[in-house]
């Protein structure tokens, strides 16, 4: 990125987190995935969406952590939550019950229809790499009203064909969700470190609708494993404001200090 696009000196990852945070509304009830989604959701809460309800799958509803949790079950999530429920209640009453407006997921592998793999690289029964698996994602993907996805672009991550359907996006595209009896919208937004993508209304293929400041079409294509489609009217994502950037950096500095804590030397 050239300096005239970037007087504040933000990184592509910071742009990604801030663009993702802007997509959340004050009245959203958001089921938060760990990692990049968690940072975006908390920046939203600390800037334009102070009343947003953040839910982590450990059962913490309406949580407001001062630092980003390392796991989905950190103590601070419970201490700052409106209420903490048991895990079966979380999945039955709150997720399956249709009370989640946005499920916010990350991905190890993603295809152009928003299908996600976090289970295996290679064959399921003889995996090259056994990844942690789906956790809550298979049902978050189908029971939340909408799904937002955020990940940094790489050719290994954004692929033509994923190795395993951990959580279902738009399947083969078109009305595939409807044909399987899934009545929620599925992936409606993908925010990467380079661009904002939305599914084509008919084919459901993710299409670039906005590129971050200074990013070129070539950069977007080089870091993506499928042939990228760009919207005719392509926007430029507004650069992070000073408030957004300061909020994110303060949050990450607090998080780093808290996680290193008294054991910094031991962990290094």
């Amino acid at each position: 990125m050239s300096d005239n696009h970037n007087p504040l000196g933000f990184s592509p990852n910071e742009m990604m987190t801030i663009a993702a945070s802007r997509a959340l509304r004050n009245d959203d009830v958001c089921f938060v995935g760990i990692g990049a989604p968690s940072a975006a959701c908390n920046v939203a809460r600390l800037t334009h969406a102070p009343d947003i309800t953040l839910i982590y799958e450990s059962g913490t509803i309406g949580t407001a952590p001062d630092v980003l949790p390392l796991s989905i079950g950190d103590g601070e999530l419970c201490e700052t939550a409106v209420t903490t429920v048991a895990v079966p209640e979380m999945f039955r009453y709150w997720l399956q019950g249709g009370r989640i407006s946005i499920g916010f997921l990350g991905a190890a592998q993603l295809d152009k229809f928003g299908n996600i793999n976090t289970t295996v690289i290679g064959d399921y029964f003889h995996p090259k790499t056994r990844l942690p698996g789906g956790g809550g994602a298979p049902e978050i993907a189908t029971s939340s009203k909408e799904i937002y996805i955020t990940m940094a672009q790489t050719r290994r991550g954004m692929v033509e064909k994923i190795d395993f359907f951990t959580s279902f996006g738009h399947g083969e595209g078109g009305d595939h969700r409807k044909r399987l009896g899934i009545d929620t919208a599925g992936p409606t937004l993908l925010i990467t470190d380079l661009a904002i993508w939305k599914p084509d209304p008919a084919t459901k293929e993710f299409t670039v609708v906005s590129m971050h400041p200074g990013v070129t079409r070539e950069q977007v294509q080089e870091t993506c494993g499928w042939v990228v489609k760009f919207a005719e009217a392509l926007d430029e994502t507004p650069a992070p404001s000073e408030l957004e950037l300061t909020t994110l950096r303060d949050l990450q500095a607090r998080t780093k200090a808290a996680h290193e804590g008294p054991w910094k030397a031991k962990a290094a």
Partner: protein
Amino acid sequence: MAKFLPLEQAVAENLNNGDSVAFEGFTHLIPTAAAHEAIRQGFGDLTLIRMTPDLIYDQMIGMGMAKKIVFSYIGNPGVGLLRRARDAIENGFPRSIEVEEHSHAGMANAYEAGAAGLPCAVFRGYRGAGLAAVNPNIKSVTCPFTGEVLAAVPSIRPDVTFIHAQKADRKGNVLVEGIIGIQKEAVLAAKRAVVTVEEVVDNFDDLHPNLTVLPRWTIAAISVVPGGSHPSYAHGYYARDNAAYLEWDEIAADRKKFQAWMQANVIEKSADDFAARVGHLRKAA
């Protein structure tokens, strides 16, 4: 009726070779001390059940104690992969291991069905998910009232469940607080339940009436093990040892390093060593 026993005896009396066993805890209150005692006693051919197998199942799998694992997320929470479990699944080392994989919703519903005495759980799940194609225990039923096709999985009914909790009263009733995960369901679903606790108090007379208390007659044995869930945490007692989770990633990456660590930190230690491990984490809680 709950008996107060030293952990060594509680594990010996309740766990057997070949059992299906759940050491439950959803990031919080993980029963590490009980798992380490099971490792010291050298049980084998276990079916390990847990929504979120983390370090303790990585350790048990690495020691060759498991013939099968039932899970929904097999990772080091917030850090990455479980390297001993990967070695078993990918390379059959130190032995091959059967895998039964679910989603969190699937496991949570299955435990709840087990606690409710039902043969199976019914829920809206696995739609379009690849797990339904690789796990024969994921089936479907049609709602007789609406015609909606729903997922069905067999209930989970472990031979024995181990959990860690904050406190017991002198009669043996147990209080669990904070992120309570699936522990109540896992206890009620099991034939036998063993609980390690941070402390014993005279009575629970001052508790709020709606707290999660497991009555003493739902528990086989209670062992007092302060610090018994390290490196996870006990809400109100000590904080999570995040550095230990990061450190585990390096230990488990190497077969020899793993064996040496297990020898020094598990085999040659006892339940009494846990209290000292959380000393520096108590102020932070």
